[in-house]
Structure formats: C-alpha cells, structure tokens
C-alpha cells in the first residue's frame, strides 16, 4: 500500500495501461510536453514518446472523433478533455458515433475508447469550468460512465475503463485531484457497475459518488453523534449503477437520500430515486430526498460558490427530514 494523490493515481493508471498494452495511446491538449493542465499525464511523453502521447491542437470535436476512428481500427485511445464543460464540443462524436457504433452496426465491432475529463467546483473556476454533466452521458445507451471518489478508485476505474471494449467516460473531480489515499499494491482494475459500501449503517442510506462521498461520510459522522447510523454508498459507476446494492441497503435502512455535486434537477440522483420509488417502494419509510446543486449556473464568487456547492450539512438536513 502506497499513499498517493488522486491525480498521481490517474497518472499511474495511464502508465500501467500503456505499459501493458501497446495499443493504448493518449490524445489531448497540452498533455504531452506540459503533462496536462492538471498534470495527469506528467512524464508520459518522456516515457512513451510522441507516438503514444499526442499533444493536440484545440479541436475537441476532432480529437474525440479521432478516438472513435482509431478505436474502430484496433487501438485503445484515451482522450483528455481539459474540463467537462468542453465536452459540449464533443457531443456528436460521443453520442451519435462512439455510443451507437456497436449497436447500429449490429455488433460487428466495438469502440474501446476512454474519455477522461474533470468535473466539479471548488476552484472558483466559474460557470464554464465547473459543470457536472454526467447525467447527460448516463442517458445515452452505449456509453459507460464512472466517477471515482478517491485515489484507489481513480486508479482502478480508469484501468477498467481502458480495458473495457466499449466507450467509457471517466469523470474525475478536480477538487479531489490533490486528495491523498492508499493505492493497493496489486493495482487491479475495479469492476464497472459495482458500488461500494463506504460506511455501514442501519437507519438510513446515502447514495453518492465523486466529491459527495466525503460529504456523505461527514454527514454520517454527525448523525452518529446522535445515535443515528447512516450507511454511505459510493456508486463508483453511474452507468450502469449498482441497483442491487442500493436496493439491498434500502431493504435494511428504509430511508434514502441521494447526494451529488451536479445540479439536482434532472441529475443522476433523479434516476436513482425513480428506480427506488419503483422497485424499492415497499421498503420506504419516508420520502426520498436529493441533495444537489440549485438550479443556477455555477457562480464564480467565493460566497456564491460556497453556497452553491452541496455539503455535509445539506445531507444532514435531508437525512433529518426523511427520518422525521
């Protein structure tokens, strides 16, 4: 077990995958010589050379589309889009091409590409550099979406994404890049589609992913002081998500809160709630509540962004309300 930062875990996963498979290559803006805006690709150009690490012009649509074409031609490209907000420029290639190629070609082949991109606020990066848009991609059949909440998961989920024969969007969280955590020595991929119980509890379940996992843990600690035991689930994977794990937890706790950093309305949480309001309905003792960002663009100013981003206290408030 080595302690490692989230961003370094990403870097390690890329290096290990490139080492293991010569068809893996990287493409993105300033990822080569500069090692990436957040340094996820530091030293990889030196290590693997310019034939495996492509510093691209500012052409998001083209580089995403090139990944589709390269994947259809036997390679395993990993694209970096510098901020998730810029995936707005890659949508045709992701949604109409990468996601659909396998199904629309009758299963003839697959598109083993990965698109890594950071979402989330906390850096006062303003409305065009803070968005959490994962709900869009989760709505698109053919895409997989994962969102690691800690360094070990950042490693394992990225390895799994690169191994996956189909296109995977790896949503990193820029506020977590500096987070430290243990990376297991065996450095195994983490199965896509499986969540994890981060903290067991019997009174209520909080389902979360990404930066919201730590908020949920803090909320659980607060509640524990009052004798209320909250189970915290980290989904890890958003598409597909671990319905069985959430349902199983709900059958024990009978109360559910879903928390994420993205805008609440029409966000990922809506789907979790909607499924549980169907298949888990009989297990529910109270309303299912969501915690997410309010319906406004992510504001720049400090007081505004602080108030905008969900936090542990809002999860606590939701827990109190559903348990009331």
């Amino acid at each position, binding site marked *: 077990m080595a302690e490692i930062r989230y961003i370094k875990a990403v870097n390690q996963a890329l290096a290990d995958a490139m080492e293991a498979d010569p068809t893996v290559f990287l493409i993105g803006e300033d990822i080569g010589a500069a090692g990436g805006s957040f340094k996820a690709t530091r030293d990889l150009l030196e290590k693997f050379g310019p034939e495996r690490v492509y510093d*691209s012009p500012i052409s998001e*649509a083209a580089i995403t589309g090139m990944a589709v074409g390269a994947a259809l031609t036997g390679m395993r490209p990993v694209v970096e889009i510098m901020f998730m907000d810029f995936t707005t420029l890659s949508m045709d290639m992701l949604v*109409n*091409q990468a996601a659909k*190629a396998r199904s629309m*070609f*009758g299963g003839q082949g697959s598109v083993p590409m990965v698109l890594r991109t950071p979402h989330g606020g906390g850096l006062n990066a303003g409305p065009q550099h803070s968005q959490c848009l994962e709900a869009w991609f989760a709505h698109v059949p053919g895409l997989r979406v994962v969102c690691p909440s800690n360094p070990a998961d950042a490693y394992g989920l990225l390895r799994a994404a690169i191994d996956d024969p189909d296109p995977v969007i790896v949503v990193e969280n820029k506020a977590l890049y500096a987070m430290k955590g243990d990376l297991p020595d065996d450095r195994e991929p983490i199965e896509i589609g499986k969540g994890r119980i981060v903290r067991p509890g019997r009174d209520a379940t909080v389902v979360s992913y990404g930066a919201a996992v730590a908020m949920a843990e803090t909320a659980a600690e607060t509640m524990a002081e009052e004798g209320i035991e909250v189970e915290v689930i980290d989904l890890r994977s958003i598409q*597909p998500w671990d319905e069985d794990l959430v349902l199983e937890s709900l059958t024990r706790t009978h109360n559910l809160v879903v928390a994420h950093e993205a805008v609440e309305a029409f966000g990922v949480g809506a789907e979790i709630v909607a499924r549980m309001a169907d298949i888990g309905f009989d297990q529910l003792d109270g309303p299912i509540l969501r915690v997410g960002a309010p319906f406004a663009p992510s504001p720049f100013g400090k007081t505004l962004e602080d108030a905008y981003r969900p936090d542990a206290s809002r999860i606590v408030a939701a827990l109190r309300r559903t348990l009331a």
Partner: protein
Amino acid sequence: MKLEDRAKLHRQMLVIRRAEERLQKLFSDGHVPGFLHLSIGQEAVPVGVSQALTERDTVSSNHRGHGHTLAKGVDLKGFFAEILGKATGLCKGRGGSMHVADLSKGMLGANGIVGAGLPITTGSALALKMQGQGHVAVVYFGDGALAEGVLHECLNLAALWKLPILFVCENNGWSEFSPTERQLATSLDKLAKAFGIQYSAVDGNVVAEVAAASTRLVKAMRKTPAPAILECSTTRVRGHFEGDRQDYRDGDEIASLSERDPIRLSASAMAKAGGTPEMLAEIADAVDAEIEAATQAALEAPLPSSADILADVYTKVAG
C-alpha cells in the same frame, strides 16, 4: 488502362447502379423503411477510388453511401438485407441505408451526420500510421459538408501529423435542396492550399480519371504518410432522397445529366479500347442476376426479432 481492368471497374459501377435502381423500385413498393439517398450518377467515384485500396485500408462514408460501401467489397446480400431492415442485414437491421458498415472489409460505416466521417477517418488514419503497415484511410464527403467546422479541424490535424488519409469530396453542386454555391465562400482547392495539403481535381464521372488519381495519391501516402485531397465533380441524378421531386431543379439540367452518365462514359471508353457489345451485355446480365439474387434473399429474409432490442448495445453486460 487495360480493357480487362476497365471491364472490372465497369462491372462494379453497374453493380452499384443496378443495386440502387432496384432499391428505388423496392422503395416505391414500400419495402424500404426510412430515408433512402441514392448515388445514381456518382458511381465512378467510389469505384475509381476503391481499386487503389486493399481490405485493410479503411473507408468511411456519409448519408449517400451505397456506392462507397459496395465498392469496398461489402457483401451484396448483407447490404440489401440491411437496407430492407432485415435480420440478415450487415447490421442486423439496426442501421439501415444511412449506417451500413462492414468492419471486416474496412468499411467503418455510412453516417447520418454530415461531416462526422471526417474525424472518424482521421483517427483511423492515425491508427494505421501507428500500426506502420502502409495502410491508408479514405473519407467520402459531399460539397455540403465543406461548411462543417470539423472539416477544418481534420484538415489541420491530418496535415500537422502527416496522416495517410485521402479526403474524397463528391462535389455534385447540391446540399439537399440548395445549390452549394449559395452556402460556401470557399472551395476545397483553396482550403487545400491553406493547409498545405496535396490537391487533385478530376472529372468524377470518368472512372479512369478517378482511378488514376487515386492510385497515384494512395501509392504516395503508403510510402510516406501524408494527407491528400481528391475533389471529384459529379452529378446527383435523383432527388436528395427518394420522394424528393426536385421541383427546385431545372428540368433541363436533370435531363442533360445523362450525357455525363459515368456508366455510359465507361461503356464508350471500353468500346474505344476494343470492348465488344457482347462483353458489355455479359457483364450486364451477370450483374442483373447478382442483384436479383440479393434482392430476393433480402425480401425473403426474416425481420429482426423484437426480443433483440437490447442486444449489442454493449460488448458484455457490466455490473
């Protein structure tokens, strides 16, 4: 060009022509679901280009992709069945006319999004260059696609990274119902110059011209990877899609197109090169039989089972 080579190209063009004429009939008889964009009048382009390619070279196409697909050697039965939406189609009836693909033949798909083939093929060319076997990638696109920004991004990337990609523009003067000249303040030769990409223009209805240029350009890029542009002036004879009555087009213009008919031109070139009427008739008969067989097979094939809706979305079920 030798007569037998001419005959081979002629035959391929005729396969495309007859296939599309048959599809046209099947469409008006209600057998073809969805949109059908025919490339009648444009057959010389893909046939001329494909003779320079191997199965390991890749191509990608657009909404008007039947010719590109067939010229790449894709199975005719699977092709017809796909367009009729049958279970035996190349894409199991899930793609249709706008999405025929055959990855085993390096055919990366027709496409319903104008311009989308450009980055896909640019990426394929990058992969082929990395693989270092001298294979090349070809993208077919129309003159209407010249307005899409992704063209600019791809010309830049292909030139910058010296990728072995042949950009083949089928310039038929039309973008749906609008003359392309009213949509463009530029042209491909000017863009080629701006990006320092080798550019050739040919009469896209003369298959030998297309073939000669393609052979030359592809040969060069197999040796030294670098992009090239081939602009083929050609003729869209039918409407934008079947059902389009082309009211917006001058009747005389359409009528005059038959003089530039690539198959007619190819037939007379063959005659000049010593081809006999019997030879042409033999080809025509063989093609007709082949088309008829594919058509019948497609008509008789089963529709896809609705139980298959969730099949093939992912390679394996996760979670």
